[in-house]
């Protein structure tokens, strides 16, 4: 924990990185000032979009000492307000998984290539971002830790598979190379507690290191202070668990 007489500085700005297939994509990159070395985090925005909550979360992680990047997974859909882009993504059924994995892997490589990097990179996501975090960590080798916050459709029935999302992330569990922290609400309908249990069972079956937490009295999105879903006590505890997990795995 920082002390009040510590110096703290941060730079936070939009950057452009080569994403999937080399496509230039925007990302919001926040890093602590100083030579480091610092651990790093890729933040994957939720389905509502690359929005203010994710700008704030990116700076939050930088405040906690992480080189942090949040790529715009909706870059190729065009530009508008974050809400316009979220609505466009909603109508399109999200972005293709291959593309998202490519953009997330590119973000990981960007961070690991920074002069201030300690070489360790984790990935965090909420909602569909949690799903993407699980998917990308399993399919793109190199992540050192995964934080899955209420990622729905990690478990998917055959009737839920789409052209954009053709394979359930749980099917890649054997390939997960790093520890995973899961933060879930017991009142959530996607993922349901039953689906979370299925994911946990798969991790156990494949001998993976995991730590799942199911919060009573909370549903989907309970970190979002700007939504009715916000649950103060559960959110504070969830964030504390995230910092402890990352400190242990990205040092």
């Amino acid at each position, binding site marked *: 924990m920082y002390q009040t007489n510590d110096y703290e500085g941060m730079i936070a700005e939009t950057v452009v990185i080569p994403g999937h297939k080399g496509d230039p994509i925007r990302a919001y990159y926040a890093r602590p000032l100083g030579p480091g070395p610092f651990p790093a985090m890729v933040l994957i925005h*939720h*389905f*509502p979009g690359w929005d203010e909550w994710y700008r704030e979360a990116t700076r939050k992680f930088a405040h906690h000492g992480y080189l942090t990047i949040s790529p715009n997974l909706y870059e190729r*859909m*065009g*530009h*508008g*307000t974050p*809400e*316009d*882009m*979220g*609505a*466009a993504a*909603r*109508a399109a*059924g*999200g972005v293709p998984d291959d593309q998202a994995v490519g953009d997330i892997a590119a973000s990981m490589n960007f961070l690991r290539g920074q002069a201030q990097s300690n070489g360790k990179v984790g990935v965090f996501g909420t*909602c*569909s971002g949690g799903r993407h975090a699980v998917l990308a960590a399993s399919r793109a080798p190199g992540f050192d830790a995964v934080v899955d916050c209420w990622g*729905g*459709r990690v478990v998917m029935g055959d009737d*839920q598979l789409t052209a954009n999302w053709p394979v359930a992330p749980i099917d890649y569990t054997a390939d997960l190379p790093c520890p995973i922290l899961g933060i879930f609400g017991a009142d959530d*309908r*996607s993922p349901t507690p039953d689906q979370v249990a299925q994911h946990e069972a798969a991790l156990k079956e494949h001998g993976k290191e995991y730590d799942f937490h199911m919060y009573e009295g909370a*549903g*989907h*999105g309970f970190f979002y202070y700007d*939504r*009715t*879903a916000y649950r103060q006590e559960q959110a504070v505890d969830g964030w504390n668990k995230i910092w402890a997990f990352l400190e242990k795995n990205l040092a």
Partner: protein
Amino acid sequence: MCTMICHSAPISGNGKGREGWFPLLHANVSYDHPFSLPDDHTLNIDFVNGDRGPSARVAVELSVEAARSLVATIQAVLAEAESGGYLDEDEKLAV
């Protein structure tokens, strides 16, 4: 978003957005997390013109009760227009 419930209806008409009236091509109707209404899930309608980019959008977010009331009201207005002789032949409901 998280329910992945979204249907897109091709439509023709005009909508009034930030910069005035513009032609509409689709109504994207979803039941999912709202951006504005303080609720977990709402019935959302985005009247859009994809040819003009993502910002060409007139958005509403409704409670389930409001959405059902809207559906019923639309049907009632169209029925009254038809019985009042205002609809063209090709606009009338097929018997």
